[in-house]
């Protein structure tokens, strides 16, 4: 069993507060992702869990026990960093075995051999075991780094943007592999990233961190479908969600600066002015669409095309499958999927309807 919990963690450095009252728990076997922009406090959170940084307030709990005073070496966590720190003159095997050969652990040599072999099998790097790490590609090196964490059989894996340094294609394939490994090994993992695709695709649950505070914790579906704030709504989803100012007039929802009028959602009190959120896939061009606008920009991406439609003074972005037959300047009729609209207060918080 390994269950990790943070309770009211605040971390102050001399002049800045890096974390403010951060609480979440990572369940046994869970793939938990901490998502946020640069400077949000993600890495500080990892370092507090590892014991590399002492929190100013709050507690870290492992399996229900407060471990605030436990030194890093006794916390039994394994780090995987963005920069793989391997020993260039050692073979892959020796790099993998290294953490187990620590005098503190005293693992017998045949057990070491077994665990290294097991990790190499999982990561499919058995054929590289005799090679020097200096001869490996970036993807292979990152696999070895992962392997070095796996052999330790830690309580929890702490991964700090481990895929960020790889090129796009490698990142995609390693992402899928990492997820597969985590799901088959049930290893408790805290994965830090600023990349929303990594978060959505790999996480069992995501905690969104912004300026040292947790904004939302939920499954990828929760985060995408029910974003708690405009910050979260804009952080996940490519292309970005459309956010337009709106208000109500005689029971009708009016998008500011445009002729867009929608029926007001039933049984809810919207404030005088608010922000309306529409994901690009919920604007659906159709010959007999209810609304009309002018196509001002087309971005063909292959699998889909992004259309920018000008409606009065507002420009809405939507996606259509494949290469579009629309041409620049065309009048485009479209529908909006009503039950997938999002409403936010002026302060950015979600209005539940």
């Amino acid at each position, binding site marked *: 069993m390994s269950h990790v919990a943070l309770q009211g963690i605040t971390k102050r450095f001399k002049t800045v507060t890096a974390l403010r009252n951060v609480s979440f728990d990572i369940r046994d076997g869970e793939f938990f992702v901490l998502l946020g922009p640069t400077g949000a406090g993600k890495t500080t959170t990892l370092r507090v869990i590892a014991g590399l940084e002492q929190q100013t307030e709050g507690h870290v709990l492992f399996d229900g026990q407060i471990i605030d005073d436990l030194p890093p070496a006794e916390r039994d966590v394994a780090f995987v960093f963005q920069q793989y720190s391997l020993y260039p003159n050692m073979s892959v095997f020796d790099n993998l075995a290294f953490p187990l050969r620590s005098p503190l652990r005293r693992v017998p040599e045949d057990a070491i051999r077994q665990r290294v072999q097991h990790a190499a099998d999982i990561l499919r790097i058995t054929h590289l075991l005799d090679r020097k790490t200096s001869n490996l590609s970036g993807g292979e090196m990152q696999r070895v780094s992962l392997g070095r964490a796996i052999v330790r059989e830690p309580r929890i894996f702490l991964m700090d943007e481990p895929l960020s340094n790889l090129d796009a294609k490698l990142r995609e394939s390693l992402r*899928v592999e990492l997820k*597969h490994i985590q799901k088959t090994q049930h290893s408790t993992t805290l994965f830090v990233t600023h990349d929303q695709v990594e978060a959505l695709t790999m996480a069992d649950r995501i905690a969104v961190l912004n300026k040292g505070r947790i904004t939302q914790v939920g499954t990828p579906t929760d985060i995408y479908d029910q974003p708690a704030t405009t910050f979260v709504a804009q952080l996940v989803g490519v292309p970005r969600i459309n956010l337009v100012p709106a208000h109500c007039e005689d029971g009708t929802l009016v998008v500011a600066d445009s002729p867009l009028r929608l029926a007001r959602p039933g049984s809810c009190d919207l404030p005088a002015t608010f922000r309306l959120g529409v994901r690009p896939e919920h604007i659906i061009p159709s010959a007999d669409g209810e609304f009309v606008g002018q196509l001002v920009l087309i*971005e063909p*991406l292959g699998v889909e095309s992004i259309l*920018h439609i000008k409606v009065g003074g507002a420009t809405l972005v939507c996606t259509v499958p494949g*290469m579009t037959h629309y041409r620049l300047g065309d009048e485009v009729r479209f529908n909006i999927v009503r039950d997938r609209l999002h409403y936010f207060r002026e302060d950015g918080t979600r209005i539940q309807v």
Partner: protein
Amino acid sequence: MATIELRQVEKKFGALHAVKPLDLTIKNGEFVVLLGPSGCGKTTTLRMISGLEAVSGGHIYLDGRDVTWLHPSERDIAFVFQFFALYPHMTVQDNIRFPLQAQGVAAAEAEKRVAEMVKMLRIEHLLKLRPGSLSGGDRQRVALARALVRRPAAFLMDEPLGALDADLRESMRAEIKRLHIANEATSVYVTHDQIEAMALGDRIVVMSAAEVQQVGTPAEVYHKPANLFVARFIGSPGMNLIKGRYADGVVHLPGEIRYQVPDSWRGTLAESLKDGEVILGFRPEAGLLSDNGTLTGRVYATDMQGAFTMLHLALGDETTLVDVRAERWVDYPLDALVRFDIDPESVRFFDPRTEKALRRGKAQ
């Protein structure tokens, strides 16, 4: 306004080719993207067009005029780099006006052109500020304004969005395209990001290992990649590519899968493949889930990506993985058996020896 022609342009460092002899005509008003991984020769090509890098061979023509050995300043070309080079001690307004003053444009005319440019890029409110107090995106807007205000015959951009955050990149990308539509300046744009290339380019020049792999519209490089490199590089994820063996109208794939080749392809496959070895390719969205599908895979991982779900399926053992794009609500447990077909219009075949795509009707 300008037409740019490259005739057998190459760059060698000693015996090493940074760019192998290359022919390319960029039409007046066209937006051409040079796309490829780092080290493929795309930036060197751009620098040769600008004159910052001398060619080792070949000729460059601007509107029919041979500019191969002209100094960069004599070429009437503007350059924007990844890192915004703005004068920190000048206001935004002075930064944008500077190239016009250097050209000796009259003050009233310069004022008018600066005003037009800042309006187009929506930076009117920044005019009195200095670059140091601007965000990354605003700084890059100012850099674009400064390059464009000269009204150069051609506009060269080297990864201008490379240093920006993802969300800013998305909006700046749209802005650059809007700007191009408004100005119709002949543009050459270098990037390693295929999404940027697809979104922006009228045509894309895909480069790898100092060589042009394909020149085509976004639709062409996406749907009809010339070779395995382009098939993999374009798309996110790239095209599924599976090794198989062709015999009697069937491609035998890993996992004892028998793929019935569409009639329109049979002749080509029978003629082109010497020993039957073939690589079958299809885009993730061309994989169509169906209870009666003739292809089967086991779920290796599933990704909810917001608007859709990506299934990663293992064919046979786990060494052959394919990606199938499905509706958002689709979900399967690990190891579940999934059946699918390939949209017959979208299937592609490659010769594993030449790595080139087979073309229907003519054997290569």
